[in-house]
């Protein structure tokens, strides 16, 4: 982000007290049909600018390793650590997304090690709780990103990539665009059944579908590919077999959408069944250009990792408090205000935003 633009963005944020802001390289591309950053609640109090000085030993715990978006989040976190002059965060996680016990193990080990903070994209649902409890007992700050701790217990803050309710609307809009006014049948290909973020998005999509404008969209099935390419590929083909009238597969996961795109392309089904959801432009370019995945959405995972590191550093060093209405400035990302998380009974969040919807027009940018 260029300096003058950064200043302009920060100024406007300060004026309107908005909680959302984005990196222009990824998100303010000219042809983006929608740019739906969400508004955070809470009035902007006195903003604390998070500054380096103290050291922080932290672990960045993804759902599993070997997935492009988590590597990008790691990139962002490393960038933030360098800016703040602290130790590089350790990027540690289970080797497969199927087995949640690996995350519990890493979390428990972190408590034993007495690191300062763990930043987790939770893939273990409620099961992570024993690990989180061990961490908080050992005074380890736990910040979630991408996917929260469902109970909110022991977690200081959830760095939400986008507003979860909005994810449902964005997916419903994309389905409507692809299927047209006449609508048709579509199915969801998700990650794991314990992934709190995907579950919240699916619930938000179902909620959004209640609106009369989506009346012709019929959600016929939800299946799980556990963020494994092979399994997602087979699940996509399984959907075709079990629903002969299916016209769209909606995958709210980057692994799932790419696998579905490949499955439809391999089987020559792209004319009949389209693919959409949340995907990485680099992985989806071919499918978008071939018309197999006419549109899909995502946010910047680099920014998410960067923002998460800043927020975690602020909390672990005591510069900010994990409390409602706490406002802070996180490096190049600008200003954020902590608010109650409306998608959970308990818990605090900041919302990064915004979405970029990728189509043939802007996929190359």
């Amino acid at each position, binding site marked *: 982000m260029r300096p003058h633009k950064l200043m302009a963005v920060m100024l406007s944020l300060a004026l309107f007290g908005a909680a959302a802001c984005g990196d222009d390289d990824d998100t303010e591309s000219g042809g983006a049909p929608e740019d739906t950053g969400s508004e955070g609640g809470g009035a902007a109090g006195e903003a604390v600018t998070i500054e380096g000085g103290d050291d922080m030993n932290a672990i960045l715990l993804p759902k599993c390793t070997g997935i492009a978006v988590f590597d990008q989040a790691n990139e962002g976190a490393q960038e933030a650590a360098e800016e703040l002059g602290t130790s590089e965060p350790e990027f540690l996680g289970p*080797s497969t997304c199927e087995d949640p*016990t690996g995350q519990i193990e*890493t979390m428990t080990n972190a408590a034993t090690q*007495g690191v300062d903070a763990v930043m987790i994209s939770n893939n273990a*649902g409620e099961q992570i709780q024993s690990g989180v409890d061990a961490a908080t007992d050992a005074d380890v700050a736990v910040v979630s990103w991408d996917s929260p701790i469902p109970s909110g217990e022991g977690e200081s803050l959830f760095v939400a990539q986008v507003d979860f309710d909005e994810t449902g609307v964005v997916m419903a809009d994309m389905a409507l665009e692809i299927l047209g006014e006449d609508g048709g049948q579509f199915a969801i290909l998700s990650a794991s059944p314990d992934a709190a973020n995907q579950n919240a998005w699916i619930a938000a999509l179902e909620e959004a579908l209640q609106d009369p404008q989506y009346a012709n969209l019929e959600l016929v099935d939800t299946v799980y590919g556990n963020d494994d390419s092979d399994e997602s590929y087979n699940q996509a083909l399984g959907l075709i077999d079990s629903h002969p009238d299916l016209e769209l597969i909606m995958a709210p996961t980057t692994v799932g959408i790419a696998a579905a795109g490949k499955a439809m392309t391999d089987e020559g089904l792209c004319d009949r069944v389209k693919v959409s959801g949340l995907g990485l432009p680099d992985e989806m370019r071919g499918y978008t250009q071939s018309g197999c995945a006419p549109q899909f959405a995502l946010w910047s995972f680099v920014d998410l990792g960067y923002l998460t590191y800043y927020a975690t550093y602020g909390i672990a060093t005591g510069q900010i408090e994990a409390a409602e209405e706490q406002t802070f400035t996180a490096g190049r990302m600008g200003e954020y205000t902590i608010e109650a998380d409306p998608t959970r009974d308990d818990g605090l969040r900041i919302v990064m935003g915004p979405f970029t919807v990728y189509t043939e027009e802007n996929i190359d940018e």
Partner: protein
Amino acid sequence: MPEWARVRSWELLLAVILVGTIAYNATQSPVYLDVDNFVNIFRLSIEKVIVAVAMTFVIVNGEIDLSVASVMAFAACVLAAAHESGVPFGLAIVIALAAAASAGFVQGLVVAKTGISSLVVTLAGLIGFRGAARILLEDRSIGDFPDWFGNLGRDDFLGPLPFALVLFLVLLVVGGVVLHRSAFGRRVYVIGNNADVARYSGIDVARVKLFLFTTSGLVAGVAGVLFAARLGSVRANIGEGFELDIITMVLLGGVSIFGGSGTLLGVALAVCIVLNLRNGLGLANVEANTQTGVIGALLIVSVLAQNLLDRLPLRRREVEAET
């Protein structure tokens, strides 16, 4: 070299490896030697090591049980499904354990009565009981267990020890006495060495096998229920691939895959080595994939070493015979 000396030397080697692992870990992380960490080492893998005790009996007996992880998941899913449909929780646990024992019983019956290799029978079990678990819960994740049950999985039970760890120690002692000090234990070894000889000497081979497989199923069921308590919720895919970790620990313990030899002491040492190694690597922030690689390498090296120990004295004897 007589059999007992070979076994002893193997365990001595394991003990040396274990001491080496602990010493190395202690230099790598200042928190490694904390009591809490030692408890965590076991707490995080307790389900596997409990099943390893029963697996030792099965492998010494000359058989194998590949279905244990699936039976674990099956029992946990039966528990969750029963709980969800309103069955009182105590009763749900009994039903889950009975289901797991029946799973072992059926497989044992097929192995004992038809003579089909247990490798094939329990491979079918591995697939079948995982399938049954998936049919029960589909893609759902079921939790909301009573508080006391969650506490059972998380809280300390005896001093700093959680319930599952106490249970493991009890099983280890009872298993050790049965395997090494009882008539039943001797029968297990005899059958493992040569089932035909055992049969001719009047041992009811089928009955012993049936008992061992049923026990293996029941113990896997107990492990599945404890896993549910520790995790707080259950899915059909829990514990996938655990059977290989469990068999790794037993083989590393010096139990011959062909049956007839090995001790529970060796298995206990191997369990400690694998868990300490994992924990040490974890505390040193080594990636999960590398951890798996290190443990795989340890298994290969140890099996090679075992082979060498077997052959060296033989060669010497051959040389002596020639001269």
